[in-house]
């Protein structure tokens, strides 16, 4: 593990930085002999790197060119080789991107691990091993992560056949009390299972916890209990229509439109589709409504986790969610799975009569300040709440970056990173709003961050409503002209992300000239954020771990995909 920053952080981290973006030739010089080829992806240049010199290349890029954010690791299986792609960008300026492409031979798919460079690669590489079957040399803990340990084959590799029978064990849960003592040299430790069926784990998460006395000695999230093959589903669907319903089901706490936007953005940039401005405004507005609904759920369940508040805060939060869901239902026709965005626009215009919709939205926004005040009264200024949350679950910013944390989790640790502002899309750059950051690095800061983001979202919605109200009637284009069947050029690759409710939600698509993607990879913010749980909770008590888990605000649908 090398978490240390270089001695002089300002000195040597700007190789390749120019006014017009990244100078890839300078980076090529920096990488020197490790590079064997260059590729061009839609979002960035890619360097093909020798499989046994991955760490050298990544260390150089991190320490000398300042690429401190390993957003995603995509693994895929070509006819003649396996390939892992490390999508790197910078926390300070996410438009500066570079891909590091590592091929490995079909017969012996091994490449060097990136874990010492970016801690987040740990889980990403395990997933790559699990689903595609690439082995990473030097990885500290190479085993399956999403599928059961006894699974046979690697489902996203070309030679997997779904016909094979499988055997799944119920081992860990057979009797958790029978085998208390996990480690031999320290017989006082006790192993407990939290989850996968547990009210505080927000779904089907399983946390393997080892206690030393009352303190947590070791904690390890065990995921995969909701691995619904989302990537396979998207690879089977056609770009134009069949993929869009699935994003709603990644982050399913009403954040559907934000997720749809992630896919829409990637596919539109891949196929070069220009979205009309009017549709952009509608997208922006509805996306922020989704964000409010998602943050409300986070708040309500967090209050429930931390001080058992099922009666007031939880119910209030759900009352407010109902209001947002009503608005979204008027707009999209569904309460939860909106399926509202289309490539090149949105499905339909605002509901008629428009005035009524605007009035309802305005009512909601007008009530907002009062409600937020109430929440602050009930939650953030609550003494029990403060005792539970202030200074617990500390996540220092350097660690957060190492683990690729984004969204409110990163912003609660003082990392000023919001793709809506830093990598603008939609209509955000035209509107007036602020990125919220908090310096507390604790559970409290993360919750505070979400609550303030709700305020900012309300501001954005308000401005969008104003704009939509005055939009001239004959310019209300909701859809660009998109061919009936989309067939992007073969071998185009793109990684694009949006700021979803939990952080950077990125999509990698590789096309092969057909109407379906050849590889569809989802970079889920929760997956990376959840990796920080051990940092936050080791050495603390179990209830603090539950609080940290709540303040991470994970959604298992998105963690496991």
């Amino acid at each position: 593990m090398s978490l240390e920053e270089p001695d002089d952080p300002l000195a040597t981290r700007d190789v390749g930085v120019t006014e017009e973006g990244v100078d890839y030739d300078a980076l090529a010089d920096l990488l020197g002999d490790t590079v064997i080829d260059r590729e061009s992806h839609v979002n960035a240049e890619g360097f093909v790197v020798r499989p046994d010199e991955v760490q050298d290349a990544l260390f150089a890029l991190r320490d000398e060119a300042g690429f401190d954010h390993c957003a995603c690791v995509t693994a895929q299986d070509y006819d003649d080789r396996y390939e892992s792609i490390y999508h790197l960008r910078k926390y300070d300026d996410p438009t500066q991107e570079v891909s590091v492409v590592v091929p490995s031979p079909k017969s012996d798919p091994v490449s060097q691990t990136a874990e010492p460079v970016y801690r987040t690669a740990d889980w990403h590489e395990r997933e790559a091993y699990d689903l595609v079957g690439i082995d990473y040399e030097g990885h500290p803990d190479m085993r399956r992560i999403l599928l059961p340990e006894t699974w046979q084959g690697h489902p996203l590799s070309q030679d997997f056949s779904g016909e094979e029978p499988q055997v799944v064990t119920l081992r860990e849960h057979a009797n958790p009390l029978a085998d208390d003592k996990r480690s031999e040299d320290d017989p006082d430790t006790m192993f407990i299972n939290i989850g996968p069926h547990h009210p505080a784990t927000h779904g089907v998460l399983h946390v393997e916890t080892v206690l030393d006395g009352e303190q947590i000695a070791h904690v390890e999230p065990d995921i995969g209990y909701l691995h619904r093959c989302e990537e396979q589903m998207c690879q089977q669907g056609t770009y134009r229509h069949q993929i869009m319903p699935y994003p709603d089901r990644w982050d399913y706490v009403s954040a559907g439109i934000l997720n749809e936007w992630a896919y829409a953005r990637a596919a539109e940039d891949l196929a070069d589709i220009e979205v009309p401005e009017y549709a952009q405004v509608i997208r922006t507005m509805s996306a922020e409504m989704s964000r409010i609904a998602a943050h409300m759920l986070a708040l309500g369940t967090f209050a429930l986790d931390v001080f058992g508040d099922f009666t007031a805060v939880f119910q209030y939060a759900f009352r407010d969610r109902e209001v947002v869901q009503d608005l979204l239902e008027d707009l999209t026709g569904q309460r939860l799975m909106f399926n509202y965005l289309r490539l090149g626009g949105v499905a339909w215009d605002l509901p008629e009569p428009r005035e009524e919709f605007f009035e309802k939205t305005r009512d909601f926004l007008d009530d907002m300040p009062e409600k937020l005040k109430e929440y602050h009264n009930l939650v953030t200024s609550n003494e029990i709440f403060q005792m539970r949350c202030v200074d617990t679950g500390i996540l220092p910013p350097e660690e957060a970056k190492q683990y690729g944390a984004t969204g409110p989790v990163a912003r609660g640790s003082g990392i000023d990173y919001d793709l809506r502002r830093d990598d603008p899309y939609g209509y955000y750059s035209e509107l007036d709003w602020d990125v919220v950051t908090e310096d507390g690095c604790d559970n409290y800061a993360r919750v505070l961050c979400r609550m303030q983001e709700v305020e900012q979202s309300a501001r954005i919605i308000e401005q969008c409503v104003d704009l939509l109200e005055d939009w001239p009637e004959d310019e209300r284009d909701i859809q660009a002209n998109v061919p009936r069947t989309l067939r992007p050029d073969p071998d185009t690759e793109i990684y694009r992300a949006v700021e979803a409710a939990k952080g950077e939600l990125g999509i990698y698509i590789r096309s092969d000239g057909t109407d379906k993607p050849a590889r569809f990879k989802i970079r889920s913010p929760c997956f990376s954020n959840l990796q920080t749980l051990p940092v936050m909770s080791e050495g603390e008590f179990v209830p603090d771990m539950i609080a940290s888990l709540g303040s991470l605000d994970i959604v298992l649908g998105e963690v496991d995909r």
Partner: protein
Amino acid sequence: MSSDNTRTTKHGAEIESTQEARLGEGVDSRFNSTLREAFGSTPFILTKFDQFMNWVRGSSMFMLQFGIACCSIEMIHTYAIKHDLDRFGAGVPRASPRQADVIIVPGTIVSKFAPRMKRVYDQMPEPKFVVSMGSCTISGGPFQEGYNVVKGAEEVIPVDIHVPGCPPRPEALIYGVAKLQERIANGESAPVTVKPYELEQFGDLEQDELVDKLADQIDEEDLVMRYNWSDSP
């Protein structure tokens, strides 16, 4: 007991006892309820004990707090304000399966989770009932083709009521639960279903290639479940 000195307020109106004020003049309308009319003058009801128990059971059900996937969000909404499932005597969720009599299965079941769900179901005391919520628990729903997805809750546990939808609206879930209560009150029991996926000890599995291969990884006594995507309906 009557008293002579009736108290008056400042304005001179007589104060009645709360009870008097509430009852008002004549017989309280509560005593003329439809129930009363139905029973006539006898305060006794004759019924079979079984029927009585069924009625009681249906009128007060404890749900298991059990969330899996997207449907559970709508399930929480059903419990929460506005829809408030508690109005129908279907309780506030219980966190432990030992205290619950109904399990709502809200979401996609995948191979890794199926044995755990079976376990939770087994831990519930009899009589127990299952409401399966959403298309995922009927057939696998939108994820039916997934290599890892179990095609419906009925592959693992018996189901009393299916609520279709993706996700079903809270109203639909309430209707489903109400239907279940009606069935329970009428003493109708769950249909016995075919359960292809059962928990077994590894040693009891039929020997085949896969079992041989896994023999050194799994203990004889470990509980296991077979999963076969292509063979299940």
